């Protein structure tokens, strides 16, 4: 986790530096704003990871002293065994029709901008249906 944090924060720092240099040297707004965006892109997830890294590697304090909090995830530990990763890894949804429906809805919606608003009547309902379906599927854990 520390690697991820450092990597992203470094990117944010680099873009920030380049952005500052560019802003003061080139007086050009567009590029400066885009570099600002890239800076934020580095700092936001990087800060998140850094925060969690500190939490994982910190201490829990009691009146009688402190104890270290549980360390790295098994995927970040150099000596981890496969057995450490046993158990539920994550939820991986199986087959699902909703991405296809959503894709078709997006397609129709986008074509509506070119061929006429009537396509919205096809596209928007498809998107809404897909959103509903995906949400219900996630909550119920099954085909809807």
């Amino acid at each position, binding site marked *: 986790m520390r*690697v991820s944090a450092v990597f992203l924060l470094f990117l944010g720092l*680099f873009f920030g530096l380049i952005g500052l240099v560019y802003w003061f040297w*080139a007086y050009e707004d567009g590029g400066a704003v885009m*570099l600002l965006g890239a800076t934020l892109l580095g700092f936001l997830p990087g800060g998140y990871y850094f925060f969690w890294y500190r939490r994982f590697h910190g201490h829990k304090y009691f009146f009688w002293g402190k104890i270290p909090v549980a360390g790295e995830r098994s995927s970040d530990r150099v*000596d981890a065994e496969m057995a450490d990763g*046993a158990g539920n890894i994550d939820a*991986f949804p199986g*087959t699902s029709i909703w991405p296809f429906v*959503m894709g078709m809805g*997006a397609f129709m919606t986008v074509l509506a901008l070119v061929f006429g608003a009537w396509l919205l009547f096809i596209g928007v309902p498809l998107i809404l249906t897909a959103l509903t379906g995906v949400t219900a599927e996630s909550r119920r854990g099954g085909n809807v």
Partner: protein
Amino acid sequence: MTDVIAPPVETHEPTELHLPPEVPGDGHEPDHGGHEAHGPTGILKWLTSTDHKVIGLSYMITSIVIFYLSGITALILRLQLTSPHSSLLSFGQYNALFTMHGSLMLYLFAGPFAFGGLANYIVPLQIGAPDMAFPRLNALSYWLYLTGSITMLMTIFVAGGAAQFGWVAYAPLSSATSSPGAGPDLWIMALALTGFSAIFTGVNLCGTIFYLRAPGMTMFRMPIFTWNMLVTGILILIAFPVLTAALIMLFADRHFGTHIYTAVGCHLVNGLPMRSCGSPLLWQNLFWFFGHPEVYILALPFFGIVTEVLPVFSKKPVFGYKGMVFATMAIAALSTGVWAHHMFTTGAVLLPFFSFLSLLIAVPTGIKFFNWIGTMWHGQLQFTTPMLFCLGFLFAFLMGGVTGIMLASPPIDFATHDTYFVVAHFHQVLFGTAVFAGFGGVYYWYPKMFGRMLRESLGKWHFWLMFIGFWITFMPQYVVGLLGMPRRVASYPSNLGWQSYNIVSTVGAFIIAASFAFLLVNFVVSWRKPIPAGDNPWDAQTLEWATTSPPPHHNFTHLPPIRSERPTWDYNHPDALTVPHGKGAHNGHANGSGNGSGNGRVKETV
């Protein structure tokens, strides 16, 4: 602090990986072991699958079909240029054709093949994950890509025909007055769809790589291909939203009466345009802020493929693993700061800033090159088809990179911008990466994906024809560009001696086309008369070769212990272990502490 050293690996049985209880998305019992998941079959399986392998294959097949289509457009373009005033195509048709060629290749083949196809398939396997982090989002990415491709191809058939403004769509040429009709609008919509497809894939890649690595697969033990895909994912997140925003504004200019990019009729005060004026420069800045990271999005995955193939067929680990990682990060970081080197000739950009950063990108690229050479150095090189293709990449990209350095210098760029010199340069780098290294990846991973081998003989025919054709096609273009032939021209003067170079170039293009016939034949033969591949036909090093070919549902039933960046190699060659960040283990020494996983030095660096 005592050193924590793992027990030796040699006698270690692979630990059973307990798969998660199946989220009953298909309403069936959880799997145990490597049984095929039962579910919908046929077309319904394709429509509903969220398995990264199925999605990755769909991406790859779709993008290779588009590659062949775009190759046909290239052949027609080259035919037009064999004579100075050819009547094969009208000017409008020619302009539409090179627009399609560039758009299909760059937006719909090279990128999606790399990050949608290969990365989707390979990255979870390489880090020991059961799937990508967001499987349904992954599927959505594919459908957006497919519909985006259909939209782009639709532009040929609408009234007014396809867009004619080049793959870069410079304003004001792309405005409603200069490019009317539905073709350009559909082009914009196609890019909006594929843009979102790419953004979602970028999110998926970063999420998967940060979160779903197997136990022991620390960041600095990931294969370089996965590292490159992580960096590519971040570049996607930086670049594509800018493109989407720029396209929305272009659409607004075309249809909602805004003047974001158009400046005609503007009021000037003291030589400066008023705030209410649009600026063609703004389109260029926005587009190239996307466009330059885009070409590195296109290049980095293929660099990763080369870094996978070279060690396997040199029987050595990657030379300078950490250097590779840092070089990749440096390339990505620098590539975000160089966009205006495509705008040197506007006279309106800060030349030294962009030329310095552009020249500087040569340094990490050079580091990667020397590391690739170092990987081969003192190895036992086997020239299988994937290895040949990656060597072809090395030659092509070397020269393409050198000409890129020349173009990074504004005065030289003034002389060569928008000439065939630039066309030759970017074809060398893009062809070298997307085609040489990309098809090298196809030959390398085909056995893993389909469980059968491609024929070496046909593969070698493919390579040599393509390699020879490649140089014949693009070397004359450098010369004729230096002589002054501009790009995007449907005809050229007949008294300047340019025709002979163009003829040679066209001959080369047809040789390249012929080479691709061998690939198709190879696919067909491998299906009709399969040679079983087994788990690890190449004696390869990374984790995807530890599972069956093709991998079972949720990828792994057994995983070897992960103590270095070459877990499969370590498992198969306990006498030639990879020492984490140590000097090379000597041949024949059972260096028991070679898998020293928890010693103090390693802990510092991870």
